[in-house]
């Protein structure tokens, strides 16, 4: 089958075709330059038409204003979404313990700390207690020097 199909290669264009092809190519290129295509002509005409229309500058300003007002209205219309509540953190401008210079006076004023974890108590208002996580801050408390009775 391959050999039979291969016979098609004997079908050749008329004598001198390849020589004329390049001349034809040059001729077409020149013609293209002199006679632009219909699409390029149409594009040129359209651009000329729009430039002649001279739309007043105020029309553009008005359109812009309408767009701004519409976008504001759309933004306001959007339903309020629940966002996680931001918690304020109180800042005490005191140096952390690690940066306090160790002096005799400071040592005397120091208070012992407790490592007990604070859990929310039942006295706290309903609803509000669940919003705040348990505090793990070390708070100054009197230390218990008694030995534990049981483990």
């Amino acid at each position, binding site marked *: 089958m391959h050999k039979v199909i291969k016979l098609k290669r004997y079908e050749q264009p*008329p004598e001198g075709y390849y020589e004329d092809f390049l001349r034809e190519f040059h001729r077409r290129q020149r013609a293209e330059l002199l006679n632009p295509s219909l699409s390029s002509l149409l594009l040129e005409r359209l651009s000329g038409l729009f430039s002649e229309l001279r739309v007043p500058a105020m029309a553009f300003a008005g359109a812009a204003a309408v767009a701004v007002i519409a976008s504001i209205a759309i933004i306001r219309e959007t339903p309020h979404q629940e966002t996680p509540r931001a918690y304020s953190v109180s800042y005490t401008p005191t140096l952390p313990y690690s940066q306090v210079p160790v002096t005799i006076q400071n040592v005397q004023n120091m208070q012992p700390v407790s490592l007990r974890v604070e859990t929310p108590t039942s006295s706290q208002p309903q609803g509000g207690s669940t919003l705040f996580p348990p505090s793990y801050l070390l708070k100054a408390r009197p230390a218990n020097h008694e030995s534990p009775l049981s483990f």
Partner: protein
Amino acid sequence: MTADLDTPINNDKELVARTQGGDPGAFDELIVKYTPRLYGLVYHMTSNHEDTNDLLQDIFSKAYRSMANFRGNSSFYTWMHSIAVNMTINFLKKRNRRQHPSLNDPDNNIENDPDFIAATSNGDPTKEVSIHELQKKLNAAMQKLSHDHRIVVTMFDIQGVPHAEIAKILKISEGTVRSRLFYAHRQLQNSLHEFKRS
């Protein structure tokens, strides 16, 4: 006949560089070099000499306009063939069914081709009639193939382009090229069973 037999890549690179540098004479050299091969590609796809001529002019025109974008990622040969294949298939899709074959006369050397003698030995006693009959039947069989199958048959069977090069031009795998050839040959065998040699 191999794909790059008469298309040394290095020479192409130089001609492409000169064209990109603004030398139109260099592109003329590329046209002269590639016209016969691309003519065959388009002609065997369209089976119409006039359509082939117009399409080939458009192909070279597009290639010239796109030369600035050619970065050399593939060889100029592959790039040029890809343009030709894409434009030809687009043309065939538009032309659809309204086709009128305009075939070139086969070269006289066909009469001395042993494959031709073997293929037509069981045909009509007058050789001249057999040539035209064979041409007509080959053309009809080719036109029955889908565009995808016809392009691989044209490049592989008629033009002798290797599988790997066809794969690069069509941007498909070599396996797909072989598969398409297999199915195309099977279809051609059904159309040309009378020329099948024992």
